[in-house]
């Protein structure tokens, strides 16, 4: 008898619980599907619009799949030397810049991860201070001018050579993920810091290297600010500056004049803008899936920072 009585409210409770759990599932479903669609659709739209006739796109008829398939935009992009020069510049800046970033950040992080390194505390404090306080735009500009890097393509490689946030992520990884026993065993065998770093630390740090490499690479690829400030010559401009001139300042047909020409310029700009967005963003999106599995790890390491 008593068991029966006990069972009824229990069953009720389970029923109640599952009802609120169902409402939870529904809300989770709505949030995730909404986020998915809202984030993906604009990107999808740019892709389909890049293959479509721009008149149909402008009339709002291209919504779910490409219409009036046209590769005109892409064809035009291939004939424009300024885009390819910008592309080449960006590839050079990104490749050399990221190589320099890693060459500076990884060894520095190793030194700062050694607990018996005497200057560790003070160096760390001086580095972290720069995250919250800086000289600002104009003193930095004056300094770049002073050291002769104004309008010098080298600035695009050197600037940001070490990012303190990435340095902390890397240092924390070295401290927490590489067993101290390895270091002790290696030093007992007479292993130097250099050798230990190159033969033990680096091979064990693929995850964190991948993450900071992605951060640095994307930073260089998307860098617009530094080029705007420090480069004047057309020959040195990276892709982002070319993109801005092309997409935002409507300079697709620079040099032409007259009302007819400007209407034509508008149409021309419409034709190529989607393709330009795709072509310029594709390389970053190609690297992304390979490194995505390391994101959470990388962000998590960064969060543990002291």
């Amino acid at each position, binding site marked *: 008898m008593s068991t029966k009585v006990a069972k009824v409210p229990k069953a009720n409770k389970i029923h109640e*619980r599952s009802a609120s759990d169902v409402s939870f599932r529904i809300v*989770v479903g709505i949030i995730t599907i909404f986020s998915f669609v809202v984030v993906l659709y604009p990107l999808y739209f740019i892709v389909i619009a890049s293959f479509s006739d721009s008149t149909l796109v402008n009339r709002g008829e291209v919504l779910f799949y490409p219409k009036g398939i046209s590769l005109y935009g892409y064809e035009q992009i291939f004939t424009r030397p300024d885009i390819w020069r910008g592309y080449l510049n960006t590839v050079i800046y990104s490749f050399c810049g990221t190589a320099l970033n890693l060459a500076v950040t990884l060894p520095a992080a190793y030194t700062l991860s050694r607990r018996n390194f005497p200057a560790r505390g003070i160096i760390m404090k001086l580095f972290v201070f720069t995250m919250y306080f800086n000289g*600002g*735009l104009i003193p930095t*500009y004056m*300094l770049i001018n002073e050291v002769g890097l104004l309008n010098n393509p080298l600035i695009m490689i050197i*600037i940001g050579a070490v990012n303190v946030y990435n340095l902390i992520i890397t240092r924390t990884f070295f401290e927490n993920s590489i067993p101290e026993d390895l270091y002790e065993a290696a030093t007992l065998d007479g292993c130097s810091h250099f050798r230990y770093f190159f033969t033990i630390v680096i091979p064990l740090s693929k995850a964190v290297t991948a993450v900071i490499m992605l951060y640095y690479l994307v930073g260089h690829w998307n860098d*617009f600010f530094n080029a705007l400030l420090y480069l004047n010559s057309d020959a040195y401009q990276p892709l982002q500056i070319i993109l801005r001139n092309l997409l935002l300042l409507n300079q697709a047909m620079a040099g032409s004049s007259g009302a007819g020409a400007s209407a034509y310029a508008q149409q021309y700009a419409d034709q190529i803008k989607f393709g330009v967005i795709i072509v310029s963003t594709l390389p970053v999106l190609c690297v992304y899936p390979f490194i995505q599995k390391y994101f959470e790890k990388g962000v998590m390491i960064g*969060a543990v920072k002291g």
Partner: protein
Amino acid sequence: MKQAKTAAVGMPKKKVRPLKALARDWQLWVMIIPAIVYIAIFCYGPMYGLQLAFRDYDFSKGITGGDWAGFKYFIQYFESPMFWPTIRNTFVIAFFSLICGFPIPIILALAINAIKGPAWKRTVQTVVYLPYFISTVVLVAMLQILLSPTTGLVSNALKAIGLIGADANLLGDPWAFVPVYVISGIWQSAGWNSIIFIAALAGVDGQLYDACKVDGANRWQQVWHVELPAILPTIIILLIMNMGGILNVGFEKTFLMQNSLNKGVSEVITTYVYNVGLKSVQFSFGSAVGLFNTVVNFAFLMLANQISKRAANISLM
């Protein structure tokens, strides 16, 4: 006598120690020297150059050659007609970015964490992280395409459902600047900002959920009593960091979204420094405005840090 002797013995010993340490650690020093050189030149160099804000800049004498001007340029900024507009615009943009942009990654993370199917979870994560890698130039170009008053897909959709008037121009109307700025910012970085909460949620002990279930808590209550407390320290740390950057409204996006129609609401301190300091070559004035910005930011950071230290015993430094 004895004391003097020990002191004499002690002295050279202390002097040798750093040298010995240097001999022992020279490889470590070699590895960190490039980073030190970079930070010294490119981060502390400009800080030395900040004296420009207190001097009359003289082209022929360089950064440190001009005559001292005291707080002249700061006062000039405080008294200029652009002082309140730049402060107000910066605060409005930063405030709404924080208020609207901060909770969304948390909600997104809780939702993604609750997805049961691993394939769908992976897919959602891949998609929502993606916009973070798009450059600001491309983002603003996409805004111009989608929000164009004549051909924009989004603006036409909003007009069709009556959310905005038929003659609204989302790219030029001053009222539209902040919403467009904030919402596109959320679109771009909410997913990325959720990663840190997803990672924190993944570390929640499964036993806590079980204990919660035994106590009869439903899934909503589990969120409230298990998941939110688990990510609270992360929330507070990020809130402090965001508060510290309250005046650091991104230069790039504001600059790129700026046009003659919306300049009244889009001129923030950083773009003002660029326009007045660099474009109009008022180096000392620009430095002073920039320094003011940095100092206010720093003060906010310290304040937020102190508050959270007192209230929750969590701090950055």
